[in-house]
């Protein structure tokens, strides 16, 4: 039967017309309000045109009327799963512009928070993309373990998702007395849990058939399209900002930049799993060595940046996040541009998904780990 259907499809006798299908803006696999205008012939994707802007909130315009400490609070509304990294990017940019040296303690705390945030983000990515591919059990496992990290965040800074923990000059509060103990307990626990993730999905033959060899992105295309983060590194594009332009406590620690070569959906998947192990290694190197000292330096009541242009890059869970501030010497910026990783990553979809089936498009979307507010800003 399958052979007959195959024959009918491949011969020219029965040929369907191309037709357009809207995937989204309310569709579970788009992970938010994103619309993909797909041109299909049967099941084969011929063209994908992403339409964005459904939750464009004009953050860049808003920043022009706000002071720098206020801007920090807006940034975690963009990529809410990498909230701390986004906050940190603006703080680092302001600190570098004013040439403020933050205490060592702040650098350590920020880096530990970065990596905890990366773990939480990858856990949510893991469980949500498992759900995209039809494995609902993954969703419960991921959210269960993510809860522990959110509890640690809540204990120290009161917030679970939009942390607002970094401020220009340091962090808002000192860490909770239980912080180190709880982080270590979490790592011990999660080291046992992570192999379960592999057993549940990575080693699953159905899952492997859905992702292996699907949606290949070459290294050249990854660079040309500016695909960063785990998605870019899976194609062999060495783009880890933590490694190439280290900030905060990253210069003090030893860690590997996980790389892949295949560039298919499975490699992107595997790479994020490996990154979770690496994040735990980074936290373990730092957690016992947090130096004593202040948790912030005293900044002026009104922060004014010197005239000029400043650019700061950090590595979020999704890739390279950049803040470009043009200052005219006033208390609010002249122009702020956020280079969000999701924006560049999303628009490779058309290039990658062409010629694959519509179910593969979902697998590609899942392994790209898109967060829509990050794209729309």
């Amino acid at each position, binding site marked *: 039967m399958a052979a007959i259907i195959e024959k009918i499809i491949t011969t020219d006798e029965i040929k369907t017309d191309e037709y357009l299908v809207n995937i989204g803006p309310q569709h579970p696999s788009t992970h938010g309000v994103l619309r993909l205008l797909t041109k299909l012939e049967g099941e084969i994707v011929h063209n994908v045109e992403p339409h*964005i*802007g459904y939750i*464009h909130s*004009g953050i*860049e*315009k808003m920043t022009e009327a706000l002071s720098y400490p206020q801007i920090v609070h807006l940034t975690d509304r963009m990529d809410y799963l990498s909230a701390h990294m986004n906050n940190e990017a603006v703080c680092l940019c302001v600190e*570098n*512009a004013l040439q403020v040296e933050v205490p060592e303690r702040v650098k350590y705390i920020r880096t530990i928070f970065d990596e905890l945030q990366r773990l939480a983000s990858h856990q949510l990515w893991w469980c949500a993309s498992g759900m995209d591919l039809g494995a609902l059990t993954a969703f419960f496992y991921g959210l269960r373990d993510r809860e522990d990290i959110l509890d640690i965040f809540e204990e120290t800074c009161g917030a679970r998702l939009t942390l607002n923990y970094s401020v220009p000059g340091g962090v808002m509060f000192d860490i909770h007395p239980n912080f180190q103990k709880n982080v270590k307990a979490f790592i011990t626990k999660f080291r046992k849990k992570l192999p379960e993730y592999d057993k549940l999905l990575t080693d699953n033959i159905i899952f492997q058939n859905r992702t292996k060899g699907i949606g290949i992105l070459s290294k050249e*295309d990854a*660079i*040309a*399209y*500016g695909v960063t983060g785990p998605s870019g590194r899976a194609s062999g*594009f*060495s*783009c880890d900002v933590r490694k*190439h332009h280290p900030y905060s406590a990253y210069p003090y620690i030893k860690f590997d930049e996980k790389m892949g070569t295949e560039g298919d959906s499975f490699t992107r998947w595997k790479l994020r799993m490996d990154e979770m192990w690496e994040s735990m290694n980074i936290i373990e190197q730092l957690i016992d060595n947090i130096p004593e000292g202040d948790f912030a330096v005293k900044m002026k009541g009104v922060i004014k940046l010197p005239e*000029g*242009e*400043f*650019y700061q*890059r950090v590595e979020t869970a999704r890739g*390279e996040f*950049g803040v*470009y501030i*043009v200052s005219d010497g006033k208390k609010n910026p*002249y*122009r702020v*541009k956020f*280079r969000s990783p999701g*924006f*560049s990553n999303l*628009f490779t979809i058309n*290039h990658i998904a062409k010629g694959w089936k519509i179910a593969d498009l979902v697998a590609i979307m899942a392994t790209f780990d898109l967060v829509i507010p990050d794209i*729309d800003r």
Partner: protein
Amino acid sequence: MTNEQLIAHLTSAYPDANVKQGNQYPEITVSHDKAHALMVHLKSDASLAFDYLVCESGVDYPAFIQVVYHLESTMHRHFIVVKTNTENRETATLETVSDIWPTAEFHECEIYDLLGVTFNNHPGLRRYFLDDTWGHPLRKDFKDDIHVVER
């Protein structure tokens, strides 16, 4: 190349462009009619090899709109900022660089949408975030009478 070597190299190759050391990175400002040729050279020259367009942003100034390109070389790991200005604000037009770096196609659509810069030879210039009833919000003279209440 170090920043000093980059500046020396670019100053000798482009005597009419303005090359200087910025706050962090070398900056080169070039007129809009020479920008495309310069950027083709920045990518194709083996000693420069700027193959990764990190960020492309537009800034509205009183007399012109400036488009800023942050470029990195994945081979040599050096970084440069290229700036070019449109002739005026009313008919702001530039040459596209999406033929050099495909990612520019999407950044340029964003700049077209929010700042109203038209890019020549662009494969598919369209508004990403807003519909046609809007002006260009990131321009400084943009007034939104409906959503913004002045006190």
